[in-house]
């Protein structure tokens, strides 16, 4: 199971077989964007409603002994709790697009934007290395499996990818934590930290980021290797590869020039979509490893009924996902000449 994606990828909103004049790719991108925006707005309304359904922020005050009427009033005013939901959403949205995402009541009323930015950076610090690792390893595994089908290493790769697919992210994270704890307990070795982010030095940072990043990567690699192996197998078994061999090309050229290029077409779109899934998966990984990222921020804000903070985190993550999807579509159009012209 992949944390964020679980295999639900949006279909293109517009049929791919339309092109307008000279720059079909950009026209397509613009059209896609235009079609996504209303959906996105609708989705934010739904999420806004959902977040508000989680609980009334005023309930927090029930346990607060030092709070008085003014605290209640502050909340009512901040969140316009007396107004209908659509109005509140509208106001929130209006402020959001100007960059004002509100105050975080669970973080001392600090402006939300600053907090989100900081946390997003931290998430990126594990998500991006995990992504790069995934890309390299999954591609390598897929090509290897395709040219050495049914070999021992092929079965090994398939096995590893099955585990990556089946294991829930948090279980993997916990298992790695256990491993580190055992390593400390029995062999007195602590190569990596399993809780929190260290930033005193580069080495310390690496030691604290390694486990969460690896967890994210392993899950992604599992899914990508499985899919990639099938895709590369199909490519390697195709007629044009046979033609390439019949022309007398060296096997190396056949794989690296022809097979890889064709395989990449499918891979590139998967990578764009997987990045969004990776960020989603960070929600879980950050919780397990106590990493101060956007995911943990979101969950914390939900528990604290901090509406503005939660909405900002969701907005950010969703925006990223939309960009990734758009990128995937664009890349597909750029790489495959059939899409451009058809």
């Amino acid at each position, binding site marked *: 199971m992949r944390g964020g994606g679980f295999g639900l990828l949006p279909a293109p909103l517009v049929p791919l077989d339309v092109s307008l004049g000279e720059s079909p790719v950009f026209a397509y991108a613009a059209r896609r964007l235009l079609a996504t925006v209303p959906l996105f707005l609708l989705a934010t309304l739904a999420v806004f409603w959902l977040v508000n359904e989680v609980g009334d922020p005023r309930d927090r005050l029930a346990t607060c002994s030092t709070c008085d009427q003014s605290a209640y009033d502050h909340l009512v005013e901040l969140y316009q709790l007396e107004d209908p939901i659509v109005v509140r959403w509208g106001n929130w949205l209006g402020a959001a697009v100007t960059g004002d995402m509100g105050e975080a009541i669970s973080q001392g009323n600090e402006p939300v934007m600053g907090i989100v930015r900081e946390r997003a950076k931290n998430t990126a610090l594990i998500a991006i290395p995990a992504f790069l690792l995934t890309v390299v390893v999954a591609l390598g595994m897929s090509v290897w499996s395709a040219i050495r089908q049914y070999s021992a290493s092929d079965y090994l790769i398939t096995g590893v990818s099955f585990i990556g697919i089946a294991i829930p992210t948090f279980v993997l994270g916990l298992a790695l934590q256990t491993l580190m704890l055992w390593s400390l307990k029995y062999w007195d070795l602590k190569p990596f930290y399993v809780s929190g982010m260290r930033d005193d030095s580069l080495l310390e940072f690496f030691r604290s980021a390694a486990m969460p990043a690896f967890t994210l990567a392993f899950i992604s690699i599992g899914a990508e290797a499985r899919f990639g192996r099938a895709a590369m197998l199909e490519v390697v078994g*195709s*007629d*044009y590869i*046979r*033609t*390439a*061999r*019949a*022309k*007398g*090309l*060296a*096997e190396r050229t056949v794989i690296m020039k*022809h097979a890889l*290029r*064709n395989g990449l*077409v499918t891979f590139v779109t998967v990578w764009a979509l997987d990045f969004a899934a990776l960020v989603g998966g960070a929600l879980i990984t950050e919780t397990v490893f106590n990493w101060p990222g956007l995911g943990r921020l979101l969950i914390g804000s939900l528990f604290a009924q901090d509406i503005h903070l939660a909405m900002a985190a969701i907005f950010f993550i969703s925006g990223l996902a939309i960009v990734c999807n758009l990128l995937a579509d664009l890349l597909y159009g750029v*790489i*495959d*000449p*059939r899409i451009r*012209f*058809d």
Partner: protein
Amino acid sequence: MSEPIITVDGLSVAFPTPVGTVRAVNDVSFDVRGGETLAVVGESGSGKSVSALALMGLLPDTAQVSGSAMFGGQDLLAMSQRELRSIRGGEIAMIFQDPMTAMNPLFSVGNQIAEAVSVHQPDRTKDEAFGRAIDLLDIVGVPEPARRARQYPHEFSGGMRQRAMIAMAMANDPMLLIADEPTTALDVTIQAQVVEVMQAAQEATGAAIMMITHDLGLVAGLADRVQVMYGGRIVEAGSTDDIFYRSLNPYTRGLMRSIPQLGPRRADRLVPIAGTPPSLVNLPQGCAFNPRCEYRTDICDEVPDLATVAPGHQSRCHHSADLEPLETAGQGA
């Protein structure tokens, strides 16, 4: 005719599968002579494609190949992949059935033809190779070759794609062109054009053609000699006229009888061959055709030899001599 350029002796190909060994090709021997067109005819599963792929070394690693195939003094079947590569696409070229999938959709047609040139003529620059690709497209009759060379395969029609494939195959003036069902995926009118292109190429370069097909009409129009395959063996071989008009093999005769014909004899019914082609895992004992053969006797439980029944004409049948004489008018396509 002229000298053989490739001599195949005792070629056998088997594939191990969980349900048994598939004997795709059984002890096949033949030669192809310079400048001639040899047609290899048979139904699907007769082993015709597999034999060609064996010669080119394009079978999967699991294939068990035995026998020899002498070409230019070397045994193709004993050569390593590296050695074969210098011959593939160079002295021996192959074109395949479906031109749509035979070309890489991501590279331009000219690029792919130029690639064939570059591999075997490394001293040519990329531009020269591309220029040659354009020339080749022109030779095979693709209009506006310079513009077309920059286009992608999906922008070509089926017939043009096959022409491009022929261009790719002829790029290095091969001595032997193996064509595996080159017209099967094409419309009839386009078939004729492609055939013309192949004939023209042959005339221009003197190449031999080994044409694998199940289309007897194509064979009649193009081939000098024909060999008929069934159950992985050659069951009859001879000149085109021998096979069409003077066949001495029950299977071949069955094939001829089952072709629909235009003309004064339309009222006759088609006579299909009873039964189904044999399982290559479980070949019948002896002659592969005997379960379906009307001349079957006990001796057919032994595999007959490929015996010479007339000059240049061989048949693998115990009963070749017993077959009734054929009416000569109108038989065959």
